[in-house]
């Protein structure tokens, strides 16, 4: 057990050192390759801790190698825009003057519900409040506020999402489907 304890301290020190060198970013701000490295490192660190017969180098060598790879990738990313684009992708404008860009959302595998959730997390409860919405390379949504828009007086509810009528939401607002469809046909 003492062996396990000492190994735990050694691996912990190595991880702290490596993660400090990787820079200060929370899990939600990690780029895809950083997320992969973090997951791999977490798994590799447990290997020599679980089994004393496994040499500690079986954990140390891959962890150090991953940190070296991370540093080299960061270095190349700074020097080359093409490499950065290849590795991290690029930001996408999902909300613009015409509203939600559905094609963009499909490309990013984001549903409308996911997008509305991201918007609400930014503190906005309706699309007209936003001039532009950009999904960054780390999956976060950046928003440019529309200063001319009036914020809603209550929490908006979606009634039609991706062409599907939501009966539960409509009935909670006492909205009749036929009347709504007639209204939409009249006004489009």
């Amino acid at each position: 057990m003492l062996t396990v304890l000492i190994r735990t301290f050694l691996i912990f020190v190595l991880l702290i050192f490596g993660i400090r060198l990787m820079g200060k970013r929370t899990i939600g701000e990690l780029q895809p390759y950083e997320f992969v490295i973090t997951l791999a490192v977490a798994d590799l660190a447990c290997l020599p801790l679980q089994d004393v017969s496994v040499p500690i180098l079986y954990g140390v060598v891959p962890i150090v190698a991953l940190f070296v790879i991370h540093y080299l990738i960061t270095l190349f990313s700074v020097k080359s825009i093409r490499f950065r684009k290849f590795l991290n992708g690029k930001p996408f404008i999902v909300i613009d003057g015409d509203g939600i860009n559905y094609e963009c959302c499909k490309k990013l595998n984001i549903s409308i519900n996911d997008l509305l959730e991201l918007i609400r997390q930014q503190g906005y409860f309706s699309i007209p409040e936003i001039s532009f919405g950009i999904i960054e390379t780390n999956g976060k949504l950046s928003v440019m506020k529309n200063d001319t828009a009036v914020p809603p007086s209550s929490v908006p509810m979606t009634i039609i999402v991706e062409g599907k009528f939501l009966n539960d939401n409509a009935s909670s607002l006492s909205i009749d489907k036929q009347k709504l469809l007639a209204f939409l046909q009249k006004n489009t």
Partner: protein
Amino acid sequence: MKFKITLLILSVLFLTFICVGEHLLIKNTFLHFDEAVTYIERQEEYSLDEVLALQSWWEKRSRFLELTVSVQILNDLSYTYGELVGAVRCEDYKSASAFLDRLHSYCHRLRETYQISIENIL
């Protein structure tokens, strides 16, 4: 920045040293072990002194090997060698021959397992 680059160079040197060192250590150890076992095997009556001398060499070398090879594998080899010593001591050369064959297999398999090859990578 200088600190990080220094650290990067040191890390790469460390990794290179470990990888090359392990490769050479395992290759040389099991090559020597295999040759020594072959030499013992060629004799009509196995010499207990030579067997014990090789065992002593193995015990010292396996301490270094513990850095890179699983202890269970090394223990298996040590147990087999212990059985060999027992068989030679009792002059049971048939059993000793079987144990020597087993040690040959260990040497070959371990060298193959730890060498750099496409099969091992995949």
